[in-house]
């Protein structure tokens, strides 16, 4: 089993909590796999995990759904941003 720590930013933290951990069989998986696992474990996040406007960030770089992420990397999900 491999442990993935995931940070949730902005309003996503209201739906679950600011950081959560996910235990998966594989030591690495795609961002798409991670979205599916997160949605299954936390149904309140399912709609956001299916939303392409919610982006993934791994080790401080915004990545696509095909990106392979390893347990232990800094993973975060970003809802639409709003500065100014």
């Amino acid at each position: 089993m491999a442990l993935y720590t995931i940070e949730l930013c902005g309003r996503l933290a209201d739906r679950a909590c600011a950081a959560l951990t996910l235990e998966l069989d594989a030591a690495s998986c795609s961002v798409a796999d991670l979205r599916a696992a997160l949605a299954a474990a936390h149904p309140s996040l399912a709609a956001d995990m299916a939303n392409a406007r919610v982006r993934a960030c791994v080790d401080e770089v915004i990545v696509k759904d095909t990106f392979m992420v390893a347990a232990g990397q800094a993973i975060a999900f970003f809802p639409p941003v709003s500065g100014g």
Partner: protein
Amino acid sequence: MSARVDVTLADAPFDPGAELSAFCMNAAGDGAVVSFVGLTRGQTGDGAEVATLTLESYRGVTLASMRAIADDAAARFAVGAIRVIHRAGTMQPGEPIVFVAASSPHRRVAFEAADYLMDRLKTEAIFWKREDGVDGARWIEPTDDDARDRARWE
């Protein structure tokens, strides 16, 4: 000639007047300076009172996103200098939240660069904005108007 670009992510209040004075001192020779200051609103769009505004940021990604926007502005416009300051953390109504300034030999270029910086900061800088009021908390996302403003520069 490459423009001077200075970007700050501020976690405490800043003085836009002092920032503008400092920017003008360094812009000597350019002839035109345009600046913009955004202030925290005391009311939401529907008139409810806002007690505080909180801007959440994320590690190095927020500052990197601000830098990328400022660098793009420097590459796109014939500016001598660009300054961007953006607050993070919890703010009271009336407090400055963002400051941008651009200097150029020509005023229209300076106006455009400041306009461009703000349109992109509103829609692309990595921040999440939450209004806390008596009725509870509300997350703010960019509006369709913000997206249209951003699209003008495509």
